[in-house]
């Protein structure tokens, strides 16, 4: 890649303190995001997949500084987001927006749609009130909602339409980067397809960059050029979507891909070997976080944590044996 990344995280870490013990004296740390290094290039979609507790949503929130990082840096357009405050931070925030999993929960049920869409512009003082209203109508059109939607309340819409409103709101400030946190998981299959197509179209139309966070790998692969796989807060593999799905390098990714039920009845029913539960981020294993469940684990895996390294061009994995 010759262009500079739009967003870069350097050893980004987010942990939470937890109290344990009879008198609450023991202090443990829940490491949700562990030294993640990512680069997202302008115009691309980077997908992030993983199961519950892997930290992908926390990563998204930490990038947006909705959580303060515990250590590490987030560089947006070369600027360290951790060091800006006040007005400067607000300005930086205009360029990064987020859409969420539960469309209904992320819309204020007591605000009309046009107020929801205007709010970001009101907060940042963009344009005159009349211009903001006009922009709100335009946004409705952009996301494929009828103009009479402006006067209605969120609960009058279906899940798919509510998500469109969420997307319109995210676009109000003309951001460069959109972090999509499980945007279609709560929607029906046929509606999912509509929203995914919409996101694709909007990306082309407005030259947006996406970080697409989801647990459904097929959906993520459709949207993203590259996919990163997370496990217990670590980025264990990252590479082109096709490669991740057809030739995964990390044993966890391999297990993940094997576990996804494929809509082809003629495929051999492979017995999946990954046993045990998705572990808790409080009691993280030593060395490689995946070693207790890994079919290829050796002694070194329990003692030495593998660094993520390039195995094939553009395709990195954090495994001693990849």
């Amino acid at each position, binding site marked *: 890649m010759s262009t500079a990344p739009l967003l870069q995280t350097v050893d980004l870490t987010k942990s939470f303190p937890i109290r344990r013990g009879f008198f609450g004296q023991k202090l443990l740390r829940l490491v949700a995001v562990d030294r993640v290094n990512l680069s997202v290039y302008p115009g691309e979609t980077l997908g992030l997949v993983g*199961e519950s507790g892997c930290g992908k949503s926390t990563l998204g929130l930490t990038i947006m500084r909705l959580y303060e990082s515990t250590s590490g840096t987030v560089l947006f357009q070369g600027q360290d987001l951790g060091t800006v405050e006040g007005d400067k931070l607000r300005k930086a925030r205009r360029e990064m927006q987020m859409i969420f999993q539960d469309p209904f929960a992320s819309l204020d049920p007591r605000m009309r749609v046009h107020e929801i869409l205007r709010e970001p512009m009101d907060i940042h003082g963009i344009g005159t009130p009349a211009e903001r209203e006009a922009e709100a109508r335009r946004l409705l059109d952009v996301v494929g909602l009828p103009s009479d939607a402006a006067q209605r309340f969120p609960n009058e819409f279906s899940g798919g339409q509510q998500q469109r409103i969420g997307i319109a709101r995210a676009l109000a400030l003309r951001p460069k980067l959109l972090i999509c946190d499980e945007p279609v998981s709560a929607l029906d299959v046929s509606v999912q397809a509509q929203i995914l197509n919409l996101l694709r179209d909007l990306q082309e139309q407005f030259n947006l960059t996406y970080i697409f966070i989801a647990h459904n790998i097929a959906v993520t692969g459709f949207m993203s050029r590259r996919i990163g796989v997370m496990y217990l807060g670590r980025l264990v593999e990252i590479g082109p979507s096709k490669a991740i799905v057809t030739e995964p390098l990390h044993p966890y990714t391999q297990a993940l891909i094997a576990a996804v039920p494929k*809509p082809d009845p003629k495929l051999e029913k492979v017995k999946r070997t990954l046993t045990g539960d998705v572990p808790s981020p409080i009691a993280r294993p030593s060395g490689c976080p995946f070693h207790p469940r890994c079919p290829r684990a050796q002694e070194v895996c329990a003692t030495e944590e593998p660094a993520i390294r390039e195995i094939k061009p553009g395709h990195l994995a954090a495994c001693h044996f990849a």
Partner: protein
Amino acid sequence: MKAHTPELLQVCDLQTQFHLAEGIVYAVNGVSYTVHEGEVLGVVGESGCGKSVTALSIMRLIQGPIGQIVAGQVLLHDQGRTTDLLTLSLQEMEGVRGNKISMIFQDPMTSLNPVLTIGYQLAEPLKRHRGMSDTQATQEAIDLLDRVGIPEPEVRVKNYPHQFSGGMRQRAMVAMAMACRPRLLIADEPTTALDVTIQAQILDLIRELRTQIGTAVIMITHDLGVVAEMADQVAVMYAGLIVENGSVLQIFDTPRHPYTQSLMSSIPRLGNWPRRLRTIEGAPPDLHSPITGCPFAERCEHHVPRCDTTFPALGRLSEDHLCACWRALEGELA
């Protein structure tokens, strides 16, 4: 054509409605399907299509006076006798549930009683249907937990649901459902709320138990991948009706109903990603009025005026393959 085992459960023209203050919701509008012994029937559809309500109607778990099963039969062929479950008294039905027919649900966290131990909840059907004593039932519960792959079952049997992970809870639910070796297991979206790797474990488990015990399964899901993996026979539902019913190969290779076809092409596959997904415009009907014409008509690319007035009855395309689109039946669609 694969020969079927004997018929186990036949749902015939089932109709279920909900009488709300705002009006009637026609949730199930004449559903018929058959499950054969030991077979897995996948029932696929999106939310609101009636697949769960049909299952709850089979189990007679529809709560009146709002919910009413207004027509149809549910015939259970068991040990040479045929009974219409809809005609049984409540007590007789209670004897069938958990015993001949079991059901597991989508969300394992809320489907288990938080203030009772796992062991207690597992022992309940054993004491109720198989007359076991407390000690016998607890011992059997430990065995069941072991069979569904829960480590240290003697310890775990005294745990409460919140001490189990999501995957373990669903395993416990499966154990509970299989405790009395039912003839039929109804699994209502059992893996939707679980992580992918855990989902795979649960599906493997259900398949294994089904082979061991010979239980037939109705697998209700919206995930076509799950259907492809698990089902022998597939019924596709839309707006409270069956729109297509065939073997899993037929449904995936040669779907004939326009809705099934659209559904197949609107899901992203692993590795095979088109530029844009095929979508179905519009939204499913809201089920507040009785079905007259085809409920899919307004979203269908093969829509002609006759579709709005003809009730979509299931017709036979070939021996095993049924379809509710008159145009497909008359060979008008390619």
